[in-house]
């Protein structure tokens, strides 16, 4: 099967060239992956309570609400701190539009439903959830927000709609009338809809604001600025160099330890990194220090998978099998261990993502994703390459092949 071996060699060379070009010329890790506040900086906004004598409890409540909003607007890893007695400093990475950011987090978001007599029926405090949606029927098409009230809100709303059929109810957000609608019928189930919102994005913004609840105190923006990375620039450069040298050391170690098979593992690792970075760019993932740690750990697990496979191959060959049979058996046995370890790691990352804070989430995403990718590259891709190599002229000597 000389031909197949040659095709394999050609494939390897093409991939090597591609990887080399990709990492030296395109440099995707630095140029295209979004970096978080700790690595790159972002927008800093300082809000100040627009009221005298605020309590610490109110400030903490406001801090939590702002954190909820920042997360709701898809900002990864915001940093929110109480500053002095009446200020909150918010740092938002990856935000290009400063104005949008300010709008997203600083609004008081006091929702009020008023009856035809101008009396308050209920407020945002009686809301259970708000959800943005598109309603696509005729003239009423456009974005809407579906509101669900809690038990108290539902009974208040039911009472009002029973009395006011045919009359109007007005909805105010921060004292601005956003909708006035005629009550068509009695609504006992605590469901309402705000219609006529120009875009879905706007509806989503409002829904997030409503879900986060109103700020306990009105706040005004006193400062909005861009800030540089938290980790020193020199330190980041040093870490990049260190990371590159670490990769080279791993590559050399694998070749020293496993010879030709080690080279295959290195190739699989390079392929893994390339694929991983490509996916991160596509996801518009915001990279932070914890997520870099997740990448390093998953790279370690990828290398470990190859180490496990090669250790098995050696065992099988020592037990007297030929290379072909050794690859069969070695993979079958190694596969089970790698699968169990990978699935456990992925389960752990899903749980960490579901229940963890932003820092933990960044780590969980890169770890879980990295392990899934490494399963493709370190197991399937490696097996493919080993199979090709097995049939090629290069593998006459097992010592050269596996060390």
């Amino acid at each position, binding site marked *: 099967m000389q031909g197949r071996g040659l095709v394999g060699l050609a494939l390897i060379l093409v991939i090597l060239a591609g990887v080399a070009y990709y990492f030296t010329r395109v440099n995707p890790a630095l140029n295209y992956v979004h970096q978080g506040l700790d690595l790159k900086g972002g927008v800093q906004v300082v809000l100040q309570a627009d009221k005298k004598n605020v309590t610490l409890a109110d400030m903490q409540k406001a801090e939590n609400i702002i954190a909820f909003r920042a997360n709701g607007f898809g900002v990864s890893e915001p940093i929110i701190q109480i500053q002095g007695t009446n200020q909150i400093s918010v740092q938002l990475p990856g935000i290009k539009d400063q104005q949008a950011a300010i709008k997203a987090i600083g609004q008081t978001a006091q929702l009020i439903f008023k009856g035809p007599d101008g009396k308050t029926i209920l407020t945002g405090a009686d809301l259970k959830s708000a959800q943005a949606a598109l309603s696509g029927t005729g003239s009423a098409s456009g974005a809407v927000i579906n509101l669900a009230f809690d038990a108290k809100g539902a009974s208040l709303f039911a009472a009002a709609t029973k009395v006011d059929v045919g009359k109007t109810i007005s909805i105010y957000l921060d004292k601005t009338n956003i909708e006035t609608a005629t009550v068509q019928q009695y609504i006992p189930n605590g469901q309402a809809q705000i219609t006529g919102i120009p875009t879905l994005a706007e509806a989503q913004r409002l829904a997030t604001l409503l879900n986060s609840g109103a700020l306990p105190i009105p706040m005004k923006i006193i400062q909005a600025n861009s800030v*540089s990375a938290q980790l020193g620039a*020199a330190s980041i450069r040093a870490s990049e160099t260190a990371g590159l040298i670490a990769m080279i050391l791993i590559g050399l*170690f694998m070749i020293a330890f496993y010879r030709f098979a080690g080279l295959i593992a290195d190739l699989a690792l390079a392929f893994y990194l390339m694929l991983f970075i490509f996916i991160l760019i596509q996801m518009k993932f915001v990279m932070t220090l914890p997520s870099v740690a997740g990448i390093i750990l998953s790279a370690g697990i990828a290398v470990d998978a190859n180490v*496990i496979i090669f250790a098995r191959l050696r065992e099988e060959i020592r037990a007297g099998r030929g290379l072909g049979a050794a690859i069969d058996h070695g993979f079958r046995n190694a596969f089970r261990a790698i699968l*169990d370890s990978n699935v456990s790691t992925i389960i752990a990352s899903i749980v960490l993502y579901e*229940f963890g804070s932003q820092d933990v989430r960044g780590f969980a995403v890169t770890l879980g994703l990295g392990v899934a990718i490494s399963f493709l590259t370190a197991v399937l891709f490696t097996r493919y390459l080993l199979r090709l190599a097995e049939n090629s002229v290069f593998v006459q000597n097992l010592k050269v092949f596996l060390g």
Partner: protein
Amino acid sequence: MRFHFDFMGRRRIFYVVSGALLVVAVAGFFIRGLNLGIDFTGGTQLTARFAKPVTLTRIDATLSGAGVTDFVAQFIGTGQKEVIISMPSMPESERTAVFGDLTKSVGTYTIVSFTKVTGSFSQQVVQGGIIAVILAALGIIIYMMFRFDLRFAVAGIFAVFWDAFVSLGVVALLHFTVNAPFVAGVLTIIGYSINDRIIIFDRVRENMKKRQRDEPLADIVNLSLNQTLGRSIATATVVILAMLAILILGGDTTRDLSATVVIGVVFGAYSSILLASPIWFDWVTRIEAAQAARRQTRGTARPRAGQKAAALAMTEKEEAALAEAEESVRQRRPLPRTRGRHKSRRRR
């Protein structure tokens, strides 16, 4: 087999070592305490506007020189003139000295604001993180109960937590400054630890299936550990090599983080072999002893049932041995071809 080491015979020594390490770690944790940085404790934030553009490298060097151990300097706005410096709260006299040093070695500046800030990492975040880790551990225990069994799962996760605690204790003893990146370090240690445990337990599980009748449990565990030792050494070397490169060359910010991971990986490799496996071994030994004892007492008290059980147990074992023999025969002389021939004959 290239290594022959009787791990199980020496397990009492390793229990003592593991216990001692845990005691030292707990002591370090509670007596010395974690050296929490400004991300956790908060501190003061200085916004300074310099007269001329400055570099953060210069500011970093000046603050380090002034003995400030834990700080973050960031540019604000454009022009490299305005800087936010977060640092721990300190007495008036020290602060004045630091401010003076900044003027001397960086340049003249005016103070735009100087305020107290809370930590960006609240107690809530840390507690949430701990709960997330515990839930993740539960998830893995459930998965391992399906793929392995309860004993593997519990012994494995116990050792994972041991790794995390001992590493935390060592970090406390070494007095590394614990800031936000440290969380990533602990998670990395736990992740590595889980992976390592499963790889080794997988081999134990595999060898248990091949176990011969009356083969001592200790032999199985020792064999498995010796078989995986080459892999354990290679993998730990790879990770430590990479981390040492980052430790030595990576600069201040990542130094403590990578040192923490190196510590964790060393303990992780240790505990897979010398803690998780012995715990599993002792647990299963006890169960097997209890089973044997029950079989014996039953044998004297209710001879018929006992005999039946013993006979059943034997048949099970014999069946396993038979299956094993069949398996080995199949592996040496590939059966599929023979089977294929039979089929084709039948077809004809």
